[in-house]
């Protein structure tokens, strides 16, 4: 396996462990239904392992195993699993090339494609029956109630989404500095853009300098917005499914029937939301990278040819 693949696998496996140990920001719990803090299953030494972390490990291992086994005997004309992976990688590559440009996509494709595939399959894994319903609990009047499930949707945990957003911000900084250099990076944020001359130029320098501070604020907000968007969508989706199971409670004969039938259209919506949120996360990170790394001198380069 190449160095990059090992790095990505390590970061996806290990980083949530430390983010979890550092303590999650305590969002207030939903009135009834899914708690926003994922419960711990077991401990590795002093570090707790939560049920959503276990899900991310299972999904990552599943993706790696499927991808490697599909590529075992590579055929010239692919079919079956190899065809599926080739289609996915090629579509993502063309899609990202249109957004970030041909030079940048070679450097950054590994991250965007991994983010998309991983988030999409983690979201879909949370919809499998048994995730969130099998686990430890206690007996209540209505039967057995599960309070600490064994498996829970991976992105319904704020630690996971924050980890991915923070990894992206670190990588964004690295790519921006590689692309612009330190002075070029500062100039990109604070410097005047466009051509001016005369007294307007000095006035606009002051204006752009002030705008740069607002830009820095908006850049600092990005990891928060990325993580909360994904967390909110998936957590709200799981809450919605649980609420739909509980909606009909009066006629005894209808209670069990509707608790099965009513969530079905919402499962389809959650399938859509899963892939849309993966797409949005990937697109936003790609656009942020493109904005900081692509310049007008790319047009000059084309003009020279």
């Amino acid at each position, binding site marked *: 396996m190449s160095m990059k693949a090992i790095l990505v696998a390590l970061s996806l496996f290990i980083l949530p462990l430390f983010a979890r140990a550092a303590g999650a920001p305590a969002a207030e719990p939903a009135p009834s239904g899914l708690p926003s803090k994922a419960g711990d299953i077991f401990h590795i030494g002093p570090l707790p392992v939560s049920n959503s972390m276990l899900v991310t490990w299972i999904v990552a291992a599943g993706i790696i195993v499927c991808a490697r086994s599909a590529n075992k005997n590579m055929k010239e004309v692919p079919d079956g699993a190899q065809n599926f992976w080739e289609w996915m990688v090629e579509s993502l590559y063309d899609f990202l090339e249109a957004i970030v440009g041909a030079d940048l996509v070679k450097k950054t494709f590994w991250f965007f494609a991994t983010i998309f595939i991983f988030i999409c399959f983690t979201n879909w894994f949370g919809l499998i029956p048994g995730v969130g319903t099998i686990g430890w609990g206690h007996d209540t009047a209505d039967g057995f109630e599960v309070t600490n499930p064994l498996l829970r949707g991976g992105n319904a945990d704020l630690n996971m989404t924050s980890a991915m957003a923070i990894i992206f911000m670190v990588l964004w900084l690295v790519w921006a500095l590689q692309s612009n250099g330190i002075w070029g990076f500062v100039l990109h944020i604070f410097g005047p853009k466009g051509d001016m001359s005369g007294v307007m130029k000095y006035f606009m320098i002051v204006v752009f300098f002030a705008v740069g501070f607002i830009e820095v604020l908006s850049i600092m907000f990005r990891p928060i917005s990325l993580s909360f968007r994904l967390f909110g969508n998936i957590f*709200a989706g799981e809450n919605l499914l649980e609420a739909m199971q509980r909606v009909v409670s009066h006629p005894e004969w209808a209670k069990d029937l509707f608790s099965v039938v009513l969530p079905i259209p919402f499962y389809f919506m959650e399938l859509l939301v899963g892939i849309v949120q993966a*797409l*949005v996360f990937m697109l936003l990170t790609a656009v942020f990278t493109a904005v900081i790394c692509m310049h007008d001198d790319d047009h000059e380069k084309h003009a020279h040819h």
Partner: protein
Amino acid sequence: MVSPMLAEMGGSIQIGLAGLGSAIGVGLVGMKASEAVGRNPGAFGKVIAIAILGMALAEAIVFYAIFLGGK
């Protein structure tokens, strides 16, 4: 006379207002997307990609209000 009425209101005004803005934003994106496809049916793929992106971004504001708001 107004304050007893206001005191009876339950729920969260903050999340309500954020939800209002978010829903109107998503609806506007959908409206313009259907208009664009109606004008140029061949551009359906490109339009729907941008529309889904715009809807997801507009919808995210209400999540900030729910989880990042006070109390």
